[in-house]
């Protein structure tokens, strides 16, 4: 197992997670792309040592394990589609509000309003 790949997985995951905590959706999309790459590399690493292309009838032993590659391909397609959907969502948000920030949920707003009322009451 190559150390370089492991470092890549770790680096991509940490940067990806950091970006996801951002408020703006465009950063979140970037974060998810990086996390997706981390997962795909992790899948490839899980497949064991590298080897010649796994094509039947080539007569070579110890070919690379094809199963994780198939899994990784599927995952790439899915994350590509989802990145597009997130972009569309960000676009719509931009249309509606002029920015692409994730807004507070209703519960947060209610709690914030309630504490504002409370502090006025004690004053």
């Amino acid at each position, binding site marked *: 197992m190559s150390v370089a790949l492991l470092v890549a997985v770790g680096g991509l995951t940490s940067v990806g997670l950091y970006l996801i905590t951002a408020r703006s959706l465009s950063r979140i999309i970037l974060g998810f792309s990086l996390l997706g790459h981390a997962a795909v590399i992790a899948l490839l690493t899980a497949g064991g040592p590298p080897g010649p292309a796994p094509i039947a009838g080539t007569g070579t032993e110890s070919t690379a394990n094809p199963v994780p590659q198939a899994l990784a391909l599927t995952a790439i397609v899915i994350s590509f589609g989802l990145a597009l959907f997130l972009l569309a969502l960000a676009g*719509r*948000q931009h249309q509606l509000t002029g920015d692409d920030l994730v807004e507070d949920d209703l519960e947060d707003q209610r709690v914030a309003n309630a504490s504002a009322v409370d502090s006025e009451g004690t004053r």
Partner: protein
Amino acid sequence: MNALIAATIIAPLLGAALGLMARSSLLRDGATIAGLGTAAAAAIALLVRVADEGTYVVRVGGWGPELGIALVADLFAMLVLPVALVIILVVEIFAIGQRRTAWGANPELAGPLLCVLTTGVSLAILTGDLFTLFVAFELILVSSYVLLTHQGRRGQIRAGMTYVVMNLLSSTLFLLGLAFVYAATGTVNMALLAERIPNLPSGVHLGIGAWFFIVFGTKAAIFPLFSWLPDSYPTAPTTITAVFAGLLTKIGIYAMIRFHTITGMDELGSVMLIIAGATMIIGALGALAQSNVKRILSFHIISQIGYMLMGLGLFSAAGTTGAILFLIHHMPVKTVLFLVGGLIENDQGTSSLDRSGGLAARRPLIAVFFAIPALSLAGLPPFSGFVAKFAVISAGISSGATLIVIVALLAGALTLLSMTKIWIGVFWGTPPDATQANAPGNRTIMLAATGLAVTGTLAISLFAGTLFELSERAADDLRSSAYVEAVTK
């Protein structure tokens, strides 16, 4: 059997394709209803066959369990699948009645997308390997993202963002978890995992269990991973929320019951019970603090997930039986409550408790349709909720988990309290002045669909004995090696 299993997955997808191509709304409805109806009928036929003949396995393309995708129709899958598919069919009928109102979903998209979601549900329930489960989850989630946000209203986009980001994060964790599992065991087939995971070093074993507990737990909205749910569900059109409420979190808990039971994650039991207790209480308390029918019901989804998690966390035959029974009871009941929420919205022009009232006098039928599933949700006899809750709680008592039993009973009382709150706010009191819905839609279809679903929940309590026996057999199959043998033979 092969054809029946294929039908549950392919028929809805065909319905979606034809529905998207159709030019007139009549053709579109025909295509979606035909697709969903075929799948539901096939699932019911499968239940009868599997209950008689035992687990049936389809190896897609003839590949063995090491390489190929196995679709496993065991009793657990077959108990959940027909309920799920019939629910979606009923909701689609309701949606046809509701579409000309302000709360209806856009018909060009909602029907076909619901069909795609159904394909994902069938696949998630039937699949025998973790990677196909991941793909099925994605299929469900992608259609749910679009269903939630397709009208592009401001509230929907706001709530949709949280929903999409949370679920996408848990999907990514799922993928990373798959990599770990593959590195540790060299397979993603669940039957092979059931053989190999218990032999791993205990740290790796627990790590995999905990990782997937978080992954499935986010989908199932357990404490403390539920925050995305009560904010996003109420913003979607009622029929969409009804399907989400009845199915999506339940698919998460279904996957958890299957994965954690067959891989023998008993050591996680105590953690699961603690989280189950917190989920029940926080969900029920959250519901009490709300003043909108749909938001109250959304918090109850969370609370009820706690009971299923409790059944699973006991890791006993009775506990798993209880969890399965609770799952079967909960899906239709929750859906019906949201459909009634839709009827209320339609009639009053709002689902806010403060701005409605007096519905019991004006629409007694809606009141009856609400009362039956509401009492069932609170777990009062003779309704289905009582049977399910009784199964889970008696399993808790026989395992000696007294604390969680007390918490479960307390949460039941809180549930009843918030149902009373809806009842007082919506059905009693004086009607608000002049808040009629602008376009009433086709009330007959909507009432008929809701009535059908209410009858379904009553049927569950009527056939509780049979269902209990079947759940017991399903739990035995999961806990014994029956599942593994059926897939690997």
